[in-house]
């Protein structure tokens, strides 16, 4: 009985499906513990540091939810950062210059983003244009429209936006007198973090518990077989790009709450942050494999590196980029090893090439 249990545990760990996610969590914990040991006296272990990892990277995480799905279908979306920037621009221009209610601006931005996502999805699905090129066009278009609206950064001046951005949940503790007080140093999470966590939960639910989620995995695993099985491949792909548009818009809303301004060049290169977060989280770029939990830890892992560099104080912040690059390399190498070894084990014709 005991042996059976341990066998099951070993099987769980060595299952290539979960191995990548476990590796991400393991490396995150290793880096976090390393930081805690080395910079513990500087306050690295404080709850505030941990909460700030979420606060500073929530918008990347929100976008990564949609990106994970796109990558699982075997596609890629380069337009996310540009669409997020466009959303920020809509909100900034609408509320501050045109005096429109912020929620109307947000709704408009979401509609535009979903429409753009669906349009790119249609190009990929029906015109058979490689996702890379189709979404590159979307990226250029979004950035161009952004610049047509305004070339300068517009800072948002709106009470409701201020209120939303200032909304915080503080971590409290009971003091000796039995009252709830804020812990020191002050740690909090804001609306963006709530959005991030909710989106991760929604993403997990969609991928694991719905028919649509199953279709996403099937399409990514092998589009041809999915089609032969009678699954709605085209509709699934369209919906994935549409959902990613929604996530980009939400990321844009989170970003504009975070910086309280709209700028046409905001988040330049952000799409690569999002993609590398998903890749570090164990999502396979050739499609078919990936979990929201992995992406969640991928975002955290990408966030903890700059935090460590800040705590170090002497290293140039540019090391963050190099370490991220090295991590991506590590993970794709790991993916390659895991995939080839599992393919060899089965000896079947399961090995797929895309």
């Amino acid at each position, binding site marked *: 009985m005991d042996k059976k249990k341990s066998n099951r545990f070993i099987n769980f760990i060595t299952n290539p499906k979960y191995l990548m996610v476990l590796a991400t969590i393991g490396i995150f914990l290793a880096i976090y513990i390393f930081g805690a040991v080395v910079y513990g006296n500087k306050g690295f272990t404080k709850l505030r540091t941990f909460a700030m990892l979420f606060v500073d990277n929530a918008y990347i995480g929100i976008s990564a939810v949609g990106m994970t799905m796109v990558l699982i279908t075997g596609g890629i979306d380069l337009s996310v950062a540009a669409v997020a920037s466009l959303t920020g621009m809509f909100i900034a221009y609408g509320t501050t210059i045109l005096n429109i209610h912020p929620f109307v601006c947000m709704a408009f931005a979401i509609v535009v983003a979903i429409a753009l996502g669906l349009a790119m999805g249609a190009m990929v699905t029906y015109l058979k244009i490689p996702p890379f*090129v189709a979404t590159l*066009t979307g990226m250029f278009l979004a950035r161009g429209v952004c610049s*047509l609206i305004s070339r300068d950064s517009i800072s948002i001046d709106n009470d409701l936006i201020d209120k939303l951005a200032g909304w915080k949940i503080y971590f409290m503790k009971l003091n000796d007198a039995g009252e709830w007080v804020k812990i020191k140093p002050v740690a909090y999470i804001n609306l963006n973090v709530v959005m991030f966590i909710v989106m991760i939960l929604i993403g997990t639910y969609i991928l694991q518990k719905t028919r649509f989620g199953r279709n996403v995995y099937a399409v990514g695993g092998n589009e041809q077989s999915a089609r032969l099985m009678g699954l709605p491949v085209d509709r699934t792909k369209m919906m994935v790009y549409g959902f990613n548009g929604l996530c980009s818009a939400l990321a844009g809303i989170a970003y504009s709450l975070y910086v309280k301004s709209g700028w046409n060049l905001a988040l330049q290169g952000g799409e690569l942050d999002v993609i590398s977060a998903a890749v570090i989280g164990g999502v396979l770029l050739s499609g078919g494999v990936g979990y929201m939990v992995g992406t969640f830890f991928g975002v955290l892992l990408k966030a903890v590196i700059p935090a460590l560099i800040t705590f170090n104080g002497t290293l140039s912040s540019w090391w963050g*980029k*190099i370490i991220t690059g090295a991590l991506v390399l590590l993970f794709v190498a790991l993916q390659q090893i895991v995939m080839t070894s599992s393919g060899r084990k089965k000896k079947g014709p399961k090995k797929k090439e895309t």
Partner: protein
Amino acid sequence: MKSKESIFKSKLTWAVIAELLILVIAGILEPSFFKIEYNQTTGMLYGSIIDIINRSAEITIIAMGMTMVIALGGTDISVGALVAVAGAFALKFLRWDVTVYPTPGDYTVYPFILVIVVPLIICTLMGLFNGVLIGKFKLQPIIATLILMVAGRGIAQIATNGKQFTTGYTPFRFIGQGSMLGLPFPIIITIVVCAVVMIFVRKTAFGTFVESVGINPNASRVTGLKSDKIIMIVYTLTGFLSGIAGLIYSSRISSCDSNNAGLNYEMDAILAVVLGGTSMTGGKFSLTGTIVGSIIIRTITTLVYYFGITSESIMAFKAAIILVVIVIQSEPVGKWLATRNARKQKAGELHG
């Protein structure tokens, strides 16, 4: 085979027609657009046309390599970062003793040859790194080159300690700002690079190998082609060419800017290749088409500047152009056009 040839030919013709059309529009809107003047004192030709070709040098050079990368069915998104790396290392070796000369001027610490060769070697090695990952380890091109795209700018920043160095060293400035035979020197470099690449690709079997691997890597391997070696050579070459482009860029601005040097170059280079009629799905490629594509991009950019439209909104124009081109190139539309042509031909035969 013959019909394929004619389609391929017509793609290049379309590109040329598009370029001419844009130039005609420019000429109508602004007659002085075509004026070329000879400046006696500098011994250089001036004019919008010269400027367009001059400024398109970096993209043209990178796109030469990118054409073959795309013909192999891949993409290289690290080229922009490599441009920054080349500039950063060149300027690193052009440092001088600030205590002796407080202002930038005509001096260098290391010999000039080192300033040129070291950045090129570094970029070539980075290209090789991409090539090994893609050719040997069979990683997806996008993700393999993503690594250097992210890390490359970091390396460039660390090489220069995050500072923007400037230089006044004349031989270095000559690369981007000098002139030879009345033409700006970047044009000369571009002509030489294009000629060498084209001779290498078309006068040897290499170009055919690339096309073969791009169409079907497995079949090529079975016929005895060393696919992985060909992939490695192509990515290494692209790295080297990005290095040359980086030297030209940093020489133009006499400094290095690790944040903005080569920004979005990968997108422009891919666009140039696609405009030139090479399909993103790999296979046949056209280097001449790529040169025309690169010039088209620069013409549009120059026009947009010329007529005072904000520079950032160029993106929207580019998006519109790519949209048209890729829709025409896309498989279903291509099939539709092919069947229509076939029907027309049939009808012609019947009537003729």
